[in-house]
């Protein structure tokens, strides 16, 4: 049985309409899409502060909304925890009081212990402080802790990483991963960052203009060009998973599927797995494996889909994961590239950006 079954339709006075149906079966599900696509409204309907004109929302075996049957559970009885983008910590309460605010609620799950939340989210020493004196990352963790301690059966997070700068983003992401691993709480989060969706979610619903345009595993759903608005932006971004990253001699490297990838210097302890990001235009395709180049990374793969977008050609190369290369139409013609072609992708180590 799915954990969350969502089917709602709501038209706002502005004329904007959300009409969405999806089932969340995995532990972590992402709602992905550009801003203004209706993602936050969907969270509002699940949390209970936005009542859809038509809606059926089931969490486990409980109906949160069933408009044909006249059911609309008030927010306080849903046992759905929400971490807001702007946190909304109570400014007149200490961090400790904020954390404990929702604690009196008893759910069907074994209660989450206050001390353990403080430990996992590293909130020691913050208890007597007030939200006004916290940094952005601290606020994020307090908001997450507060939602967790209300013992939710489902955790909603609205752009948990959007307001944070890059290094902080990675730290908070690792907190989120810890939380999900520790308490096993089904989580639905809203994001417009591909990197965090791929790293954190098992399932993704891609939204545009209030509707789902793709659903499924991140690899698959995020590989579709139209939903991501590539037609009017820079196109796809490569984000590949690297296992076993380590320094070997004076060079960092890791495994990309079965092949080795040389990495730029990794600062601090590398996370496992590690992700690298690079632009499709930084990839050179070659029909043969050419030796004697200064470009160190030669990754072999098979051409999959080919898309013509914004004056360029994007070639999806299956190297175990999907790797996008941008080439000119002339190059496609001269090399005779077509789905099924065996190619080598040449990627300069310097063009790789290591994430976490």
């Amino acid at each position, binding site marked *: 049985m799915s954990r969350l079954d969502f089917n709602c339709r709501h038209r706002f006075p502005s004329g904007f309409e959300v009409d969405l149906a999806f089932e969340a079966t995995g532990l972590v599900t992402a709602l992905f899409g550009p801003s203004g696509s209706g993602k936050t409204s969907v969270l509002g309907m699940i*949390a*209970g*502060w936005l009542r859809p004109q038509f809606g059926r929302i089931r969490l486990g075996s409980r109906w949160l909304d069933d408009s044909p049957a006249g059911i609309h559970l*008030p*927010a*306080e*009885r*849903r*046992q*759905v*925890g*929400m971490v*807001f983008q*702007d946190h*909304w910590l*109570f*400014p*007149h309460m*200490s961090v400790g009081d904020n954390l404990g*605010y*929702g604690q*009196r*609620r008893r759910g069907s799950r074994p209660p989450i212990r206050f001390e353990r939340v403080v430990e996992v989210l590293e909130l020691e020493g913050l208890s007597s402080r*007030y939200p*006004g*004196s916290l940094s952005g990352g601290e606020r994020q963790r307090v908001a997450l802790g*507060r*939602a967790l301690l*209300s013992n939710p059966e489902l955790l909603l997070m609205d752009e948990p990483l959007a307001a944070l700068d890059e290094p902080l983003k990675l730290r908070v992401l690792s907190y989120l991963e810890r939380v999900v691993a520790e308490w096993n709480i089904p989580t639905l989060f809203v994001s417009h960052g591909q990197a965090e969706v791929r790293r954190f979610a098992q399932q993704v619903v891609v939204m545009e203009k209030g509707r789902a345009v793709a659903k499924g595993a991140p690899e698959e759903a995020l590989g579709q060009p139209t939903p991501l608005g590539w037609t009017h932006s820079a196109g796809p971004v490569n984000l590949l998973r690297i296992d076993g990253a380590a320094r070997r001699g004076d060079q960092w490297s890791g495994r990309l599927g079965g092949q080795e990838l040389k990495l730029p210097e990794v600062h601090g302890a590398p996370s496992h797995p590690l992700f690298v990001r690079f632009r499709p235009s930084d990839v050179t395709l070659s029909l043969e494996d050419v030796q004697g180049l200064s470009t160190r990374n030669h990754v072999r793969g098979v051409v999959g889909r080919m898309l013509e977008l914004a004056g360029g050609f994007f070639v999806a190369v299956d190297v175990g994961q999907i790797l996008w290369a941008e080439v000119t139409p002339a190059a496609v013609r001269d090399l005779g590239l077509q789905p099924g072609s065996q190619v080598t992708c040449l990627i300069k180590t310097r063009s790789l950006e290591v994430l976490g």
Partner: protein
Amino acid sequence: MEFSAAEWSAIHNSLRVGLLVVLVSLPPGVCLGYVLARHRFPGKWLLEVAVNLALVVPPVVTGYLLLQVFKPAAPVGGFLGRALGLKVAFEFPGLVVAAAVMSFPLMVRAIRLGFQSVDPNLETAARTLGAGWWRTFFTVSLPLARNGVIAGSVLAYARSLGEFGATVMLASQREGNRTIPLLVYALKDRPDGLASIWPLVAVSLLLAAGALVASEVLERKGLRHESA
């Protein structure tokens, strides 16, 4: 400084009126302020007009209307007298009623602004944490609107201390039933009156300044954490 019996009675009455008006007006003032800040409903403008009427109508006219309602021969005044033994017109309750009616719009306005300054998202957050309407109101909305409530109370108290026009119509026909402004007015026409007004002026200033200081202290106490 020596006060005569009449002066003591006026000071005593003024203080009692000020405090009673705040106590009596606060519950309905908080309710109305919250409703006006948070809810939209048909006929809301009518409610706003009704609340603010006393601000624009000449106080003497308001006093005259109150007298028509509360005089013993009128239905309301008669009922209160018979059923509760409560005489409003020309008695101490009249001082309170007149001051309360005149200061109520000021109180509601300040409290409403207080609630409007509370982001409704904080209330939403409380609800998702399992708090029902009452708990949300008393733990989030009201504490955060505190400064508006304090300001509204101080305004109502100060307005009550100064109330004259409606009070003179509804309540002031008797020697012992005077507040400071009413006594000042009565003294003014006596031969030695003008000199004897000074002590009352000093007390008025003191009471008003005291209210301002109290509100400042209360607001600062609440603000300490939030701006830290």
